[in-house]
């Protein structure tokens, strides 16, 4: 998280960013549109649940996790077929009920199951990796008010890494977006 930043707080600590509170989903939705249109790139919305349409309001592109899941499914299914061929038709051939050593039909259930299993791994662990989780420390966690994001608080946070960041200007932007309780966050 530590990045070079030119701003320091009154106590001399480097500043991570600034965050402000909004009263409800509607307010933060319209607030996000204003921050988006101001050209801010390194910022985020924090809400107790995913707000519908927020992707557009924040100007985010679509999530990438689907490609990972598709890859995982193909990897699992092809790996399973290959494994069964290797084990039952190549490395250790044995006759069971006069069935062929290799036939895709008899290997289908395990192929399907492993395809599902590996794609599920890619879905959840891919999601966590894209989100850079687990991350147990974050500057925002130091703010007690921020903990209400898990209850009924709606917040927008702008990072100091963003090129448009400036303590005063960013505060003005958040005010214009409708935020209250605006605070600087130290790293």
């Amino acid at each position: 998280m530590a990045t070079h930043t030119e701003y320091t707080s009154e106590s001399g600590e480097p500043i991570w960013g600034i965050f402000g509170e909004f009263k409800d989903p509607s307010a933060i939705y319209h607030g996000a549109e204003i921050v988006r249109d101001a050209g801010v790139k390194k910022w985020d919305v924090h809400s107790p649940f995913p707000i519908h349409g927020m992707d557009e309001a924040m100007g985010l592109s679509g999530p990438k996790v689907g490609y990972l899941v598709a890859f995982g499914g193909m990897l699992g299914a092809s790996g399973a077929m290959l494994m069964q061929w290797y084990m039952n038709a190549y490395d250790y051939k044995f006759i069971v009920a006069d069935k062929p050593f290799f036939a895709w039909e008899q290997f289908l259930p395990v192929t399907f199951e492993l395809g599902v299993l590996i794609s599920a791994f890619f879905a959840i662990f891919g999601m966590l990796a894209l989100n850079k989780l687990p991350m147990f420390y974050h500057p925002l966690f130091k703010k007690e008010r921020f903990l209400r994001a898990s209850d009924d608080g709606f917040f927008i946070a702008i990072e100091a890494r963003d090129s448009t960041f400036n303590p005063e200007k960013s505060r003005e932007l958040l005010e214009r977006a409708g935020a209250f309780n605006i605070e600087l966050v130290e790293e």
Partner: protein
Amino acid sequence: MSPVDPDAYGAQNLGKASDPAAVDVVRDPETIDGTLVDDPSVRAPLVLGGRDFHSVTETICGWSENKAPGWWLPAFMFSAATAGVAGLMILYLVTTGVGVWGLNNPVAWGWAIVNFVWWVGIGHAGTLISAILCIFKQKWRTSINRFAEAMTIFAVICAGTFPGIHVGRIWFAWFLFPIPNSNSIWPNFKSPLLWDVFAVGTYFTVSLLFWYMGMIPDIATFRDRAIKRMDLRKTIGPFQLAVGKIAAFGYGVASLGWRFSHRHWQNYEKAYILLAGIATPLVLSVHSVVSFDFAVAVVPGWHTTIFPPYFVAGAIFSGFAMVLTLLIPARALYPGMKDFVTARTIENMCKIITVTGSMVGFAYIMEFFIAWYSASSYESEAFIIRALGPYWWAYFIMFFCNVLSPQVFWLKWARSTPWFIFIVTIFVNIGMWFERFVIVTTLSSDFMPSSWGYYAPTYVDVLTFVGSLGIFMTLFLLFMRFLPMLAISEVKNVLPQANPHAAPPPPAGAPATNGEAR
């Protein structure tokens, strides 16, 4: 995706905005708590009691944070003691051998496989509710999906125990998995029994991941509340336990540092819907594969193509019954739960029970028809013995509990009276256990009348099964005590005020929807 003009976006979305609060809540005997509205143009409210986000958090977290209700500890001790009985029985079995069970030849599969199939079947409701109903956008599922998923996981744990101990030499159970070994042999992938290992193993793992992933934000809510109560200490006998710190640390680790960021929510929601998508065929496949254990064998009465769909319908049937068996007492015992689990939720589940029960009944009758129509004397004889032979009583219990008892839900009174629903779900649980018993005891009269016999369980069989109920209840009570029982963030998401387009006045030209029935 290019940014859309906010007003255009708002106008486009206002038309489809769902606002359950717009419907007047009338409490009367017809609609019970105001949710049993028969008019399909009216959307019943999903959450009652005029709740805001904070009161949802308070209520659901309160169930875990407040002092345990008076019944919890006795119930837990009793369940844990029952689970201990299973432990002793399994120890006796492992040290002595499977001869302590009532198995014989030809009934080489007894209660163990009956219990296995019964528990796996029960486990189907959780993923059905969380995956299939999620894809169909059935929002009423948000209040019960966590509950049902937890039930699934614990049921599959109980299920997995039985084949594990049935192998006899339990220390060779790892032969089930394709692990390189010093004999350089591999498992036989042509066997349905091995398919079962993969199907049930995958089902358990995916259900566990799905459950855990759904819980990450809610555990983060627990964490944030635990941080505020760090100083909490509890005296247990001579020990002073810093429960506040333990809770903050435990929930902190389990929530992986989730900070409710929308950039995270975006990936999370996508991953959730994709998991639902891949779990949907998985639910249908698991019990199909379990049914192959029987259907692939050349035993009359087992070797039928109807088994996969019939097993899946039965699994959903028994799973929903078990969810209601647990949900109805919980709903009565936990204050405030009735606001989330409405009469309509219960009614919807009753309807699914009637539908799947009728499918199961159809399958029972169709089996008989095909046995006659196939003109195979072994096949028809197997079915006549099944219904009229020495196990006629089991067949009768099965037919009565599974086919006849769920038909009472055609009456509105029956599907809106919780105590009555509870009784019917107990019938269904019993009936579904007997369905598997009826199938398995087909073995007792096989091709050779000289080897026909009567299979009866021993006390070890019975106590292991009773003990598995104890394992299930112990795990479930722990879940109710320490984890978010309802999906907090999902429930908040279905509240009317969660819609970002509900509050501002509609832009000119947009259709006004508030206050009108749709």
